[in-house]
């Protein structure tokens, strides 16, 4: 399941939901949460503003989930990405994957994050005392995603 939303999410609830869908088949759940950090392209970041392309975002994420299912033996996937105004330490993104074995859960979770960062149409703007600035795309993120080819 995929959600793009302004409101926060509960890691505990999302984990519990993945766990409750197991039916005895899953031996592993891998989760990742991304947070707002005080530095990015600049120092002294006080928050982020996140924008996306409604419709395309969901399509891209659905494609990535389908790719994860075809590459690894995973049971369930859950992606939540927040948009709007976020302050320091707030949660930005959640990716959770359940699987029979940990290697599939770990790999699919990292794959989904790597490709979310390079393909899903989200854009971050960093807020500082000196004003707001759009974040530049990182070559290191592209290289990380290419490493799955």
């Amino acid at each position, binding site marked *: 399941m995929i959600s793009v939303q302004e409101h926060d999410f509960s890691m505990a609830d999302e984990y519990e939901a993945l766990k409750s869908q197991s039916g005895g088949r899953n031996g592993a759940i891998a989760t990742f949460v*991304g947070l707002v950090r005080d530095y990015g392209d600049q120092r002294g970041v006080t928050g982020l503003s996140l924008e996306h*392309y409604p*419709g395309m975002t969901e*399509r891209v994420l659905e494609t990535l989930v389908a790719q994860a299912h075809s590459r690894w033996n995973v049971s369930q996937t859950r992606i939540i*990405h927040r948009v709007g105004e976020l302050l320091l330490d707030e949660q930005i993104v959640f990716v959770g994957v359940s699987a029979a074995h940990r290697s599939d859960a770990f790999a699919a979770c990292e794959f989904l*994050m790597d490709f*979310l960062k390079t393909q899903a149409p989200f854009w971050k703007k960093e807020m500082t005392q000196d004003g707001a600035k759009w974040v530049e795309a990182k070559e290191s993120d592209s290289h990380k995603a290419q490493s799955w080819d």
Partner: protein
Amino acid sequence: MIPMKVKFFASLREYVGHDQLDVQWHSGDTVAELIDRLQEEYELCAKMFREKNVLCALNQSVVPVSTEVGEQDELAFFPPVTGG
């Protein structure tokens, strides 16, 4: 010629000062031809395509500029993505 709305997101939306602009669409046009027409019509668009790294999505999929655009298609321009 039919007017078509083209979308802009994030830093490009701020750069051109609009989230949508009209461009005249002709049957058989490619994305590149619509970009040429946008540049002729809007000075800020010309500057944007010269100076910025611009990605193009047709019907919500990133495509090369050689792609042909249909009358009902959704065309959007945006910078490289930075989510996660």
